Structures are given as C-alpha cells and as structure tokens.
C-alpha cells in the first residue's frame, strides 16, 4: 500500500519535470540539460524568499516560479538560441549553464542542506499509510498543473500554435506563427513547471547545490522511454519509472534506485530510440 502512495508522489514529481523537458524538446528541438537547474532554483528561491525576505510561503512560491520562468526564457534567448544549429552545441551549453548554476548556488549557500518550509505540516493517514501532508499536496498540484497544461495545449489557440510548431516548424512559420516568441513561451512554461516541482518537493527532499543532477537524469530517462516530444508518453513513463523506483527501494534497497532510471535510458536508447510513444527517433 505504501508503495502505491509513495510511488504516486514520486511519479508526480518526475512527471512535472519530464513534461517540461519533453515540451521544449518537442517544440524547439532543444535537449535542455539545464532543466534540473530550474528545479533547483525553484527550491532555493523558495528558501531564500521565505527565510531571508520573510515572505509568506504562497507568495514566495509564486515569485519563485515566475523568476525561474523568466530566467529560463533568458537562458534560451541568450545562450541556447545562437547555437541552435548544432544539437550537440545546445547540449554542451545547457550542461555548462547547469554547472554554472550549481557552482553559484554552492558558493552562495554552501554545500549543506537547506530547509524549505512546507505548505502543510500535518500528517495524514491514507488507507493505513502515514503520509506527510506535503507529499499529498505535491501529488495534487502535479495533477492539476499537468492537466491544466494538457488542456491548454489541446484547447486553446496558443496551444494549437505550439502543436503546429512541434509538428512542422517551417509550415508553421509560413502560417505566420511567430516561432521565436512561442519558443520563449514554451521555455517559460517548462521552467516554471520545473520550479513548481522544486518548490513542492523542496520541503521533503534535499535542497543542496547538486540537486539538479538526478532530476535531469531521470527526466531524460523518462522522456526517452516515453518518447521525445510526446506529453502523454512522458506522463506514462514518469509513472512507470516512479513506481519502478519505489518498488526497488522497498523490495531491494534504496541504493539501486538511481540505476533503474539510467539503465532504462540506456536500454531504451539502444533498443528502441523512439521510445514507447515517440514520434521522433534518435537516429
């Protein structure tokens, strides 16, 4: 039973990260290795705004998400866009950006863990399992935000524009869709979602400068398994991976969990680069 609930929470966080990652790839063909940094920055900003600026939590969370979204847009515009011709170049520079952010956080805050306050401090008992309130809230928030995003893409005009660009950039341009502006928008959404994950998960997971690394590895794993560019694929894969990890943690030991995602990536890349639902292959 615990596996069911904890697995759901873990999967929810992964889903938030993966969806953002796959979105920017599907639309702009950018493999953004700095995505984990958005997650980290979300958590750290929440810490800073509440502890040092003394803001109430909900305001800090909101500001944090907005700031990171803006940061994401700037990174894309200034660092990534000029190198868009080379996928490898984008990879390198986003990785370098992630390292810079990590070092900046390290230099500012030191390597010790920081405490991000939680929205809900109480504990709930669900079907006989003790769960911290914050974790349940995270699950709820993830569901709402991803659901909202999906609805946005399917049912609004802007969403259709995004879909159009991801399917055929050239044609979309001919149709008068301003691709550059859409890229920025998508980047903002992607970064904001990651920051939201950071804000939600910060209270119960660790907040330290290198916290961006594992999420990006897992997000990449999920996206590869689910199929690059496919949102439903990412969600499905997020749950598969989240549960796989939780099961391994309970049955075997927590040490093996990291390998699960990385191994899944490797195997998928080797045997079925298009992923489970992917439209675009890695060839």
């Amino acid at each position, binding site marked *: 039973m615990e596996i069911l609930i904890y697995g759901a929470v873990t999967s929810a966080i992964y889903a938030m990260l993966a969806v953002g990652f796959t979105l920017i790839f599907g639309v702009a063909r950018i493999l953004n290795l700095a995505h984990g940094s958005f997650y980290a920055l979300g958590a750290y900003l929440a810490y800073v705004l509440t502890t040092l600026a003394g803001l109430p939590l909900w305001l800090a969370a909101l500001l944090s998400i907005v700031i990171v979204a803006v940061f994401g847009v700037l990174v894309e515009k200034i660092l990534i866009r000029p190198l868009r011709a080379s996928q490898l170049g984008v990879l390198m520079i986003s990785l*370098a950006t992630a390292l810079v952010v990590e070092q900046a956080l390290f230099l500012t805050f030191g390597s010790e863990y920081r405490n991000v306050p939680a929205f809900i401090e109480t504990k709930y008992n669900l079907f006989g399992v003790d769960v911290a309130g914050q974790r349940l809230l995270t699950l709820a928030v993830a569901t709402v935000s991803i659901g909202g995003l999906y609805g946005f893409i399917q049912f609004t005009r802007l969403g259709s524009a995004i879909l159009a660009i991801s399917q055929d950039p050239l044609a979309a341009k001919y149709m008068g869709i301003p691709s550059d502006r859409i890229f920025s928008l998508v980047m903002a959404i992607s970064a904001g979602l990651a920051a939201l994950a950071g804000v939600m998960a910060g209270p119960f997971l660790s907040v330290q400068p290198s916290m961006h690394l594992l999420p990006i*590895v897992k997000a990449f794993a999920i996206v590869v398994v689910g199929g690059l560019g496919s949102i439903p694929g990412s969600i499905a894969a997020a749950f598969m991976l989240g549960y796989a990890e939780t099961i391994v943690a309970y049955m075997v030991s927590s040490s093996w969990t990291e390998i699960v995602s990385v191994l899944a990536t490797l195997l998928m*890349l*080797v045997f079925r680069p298009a992923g489970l639902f992917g439209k675009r292959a890695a060839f």
Partner: protein
Amino acid sequence: MKAFKGLDTLSSIGGLVALLFLGVLPTLFTGKYLVGVLTVAAIYGIWAVSWDFMSGLTGRENFGHSLFIGVGAYAAGFLNVHFGLGPWWSLPASMLVAMVFAVVLGFPTLRLKGPYFALAMLSSAVIMQRLMLIFWEYTGGEEGIHDITPLIVNPLHYYWFVLAVLGGITLLLSWMARSRWGLILRAIRGDEATCLAAGLPITTYKIMSLVISAAFAGLGGALYAHYQLQVSPQLFAVVTSITIITMVYVGGMGTIFGAVGGALLLTVMTEGLRNFGEWRLMVYSLLLIFILFFLPNGIIAPIWQKIRNLGRPS
C-alpha cells in the same frame, strides 16, 4: 627531413621542444609541488588526446569518457591491492579492460546520432559510478581502493615517465590522424551516408577508434591510480568527462596536439586558482560557455597556426 610519416619538420621540432621544456621545468623549482601539478597535467593530456582522437575526428562527442578512465584505474587498483600483483601489470591490464568496455558499449551505442550517443555514454558512466558504490564490499564504495603502490617512487622520474608516455601517445595518434585512418574518421564526421555508399566499413572504424580512445584513457587511468595511490568513484563523474572535453575545446577539436596544450593550460590554471578552490568549477563552466560562443576552434591550435605562418610569406 620528415621525422615521421605525415608529420612535417616544424611540428616535430615544435613538439620536441615543448616536451623538453616540460621535462626540464620542474627541475628549476625546489619542492615537489610543481612536479605533482605537471604530472596530473600530463595525465589529463593523455585523457584529452585519447578523447580527441575519437570524438574530435568523428564528431561523435563522447560524454562518458570517464568510464574508460575509471575502469582502467579500478583495474589497476584491483590488481595491485586485491590480487597483489606488481604495479607494472596495471598498464596492459587497464588498457585491456577499457578496450573490452569500449567494444561492449560501442556496438549498441555507435549507431545513435550525435546527442544520443553522447548521452548514452554519459548514462553508462553514471551507471558504472553507481555500481562502484552499490558493490561497496568489493570496491570500497565511496572511499574506493587505497594503498596502491607507486610505479616509480621518485616523483620526478615518474613525471618523466608519464611525459614520455604522453609524448608517445600523442605522436602515435597524430600520425594516425594524418593517415588514412584519420581521413576516414573525418569523412564519417562529414557525411556517414556517403561513406556507406562508398562501401566503407563505417561501424568497424567507429568501434576501432572508440577502442583505441578507450585503451589510452584506461592507461591514463592506471597511471593516475599509481600516482594518487588510490581510486574512488569520483573518477567516473560527469565532471571528469566535462573537464576533458573543455580541455580539448580549448586546444582545438580534432587537432590532437591541441588537446595536450589545452590539458596543460587548464590544469596549471586550476592549480593557480586553488586559493579560490570553490570557484574552480565555476570558472571551467564559464570558460566552456565562452569558448563555445567565441572560439569554436579553440585557443591553442589557432595560435600554433599563427606561429607557423610567421615564417611564411603572406
């Protein structure tokens, strides 16, 4: 006088002078500090050169080079500490182990396009790092294997040995890069489809270059193990791979000797920055961004080109 087939007089002299200079340098200073720094720089040079040979020429950037380094180093550690073999056995053993890994990993991953190959190799390195930690009972876990015996006790002599190895490998790989090998690898970088159409056994070449690259990386790893006298999972870290890639970028991708220059420059620079120890990685990353934007051809190679052209009429 053609010193070696494919290498012209100037380059040979340049390389020889540089080698002599590096060899003599530590003797000008008292204390063991500089020797230590230069030894590490030389080892990084070996790693950078081996990376450049494969990734620089074929354009398939390998983000998991640290894997070959790590398995070479751990092989040295195991043989030396757990099996009690003399340190000199590590050298061929580390190369062998790294080559095996290259073959096993190369087959499935080399089919993949640029970024995916890079990330597949990255994932492999991460998995290896994890495995080292999981099986801590055998590998010493986070603290690794320590108490490795040194190859040559005198630091200066060991430095000269490493320098000689570096020189030898650079020479060999430069020669290969300028031979038919290099031509084909560069052709693969240009357009694989055409190569296939021309009937070239691309897969073989790709795997062979990865194997050669891995062999020397592993050798470097063993040399490192016998210098540090310990190995730890840190060797597999992404940071190691990125550091090496930065060095090659600084030196000039695909030039082979540029990688050596980049390694030396960056290692010395890092030690100089030691007082700002925590800033080191920051500087590295910023440097990488800077180079990606403004100096995609690196620093060392273009400078060398300019020096060469000094004597030529314009």
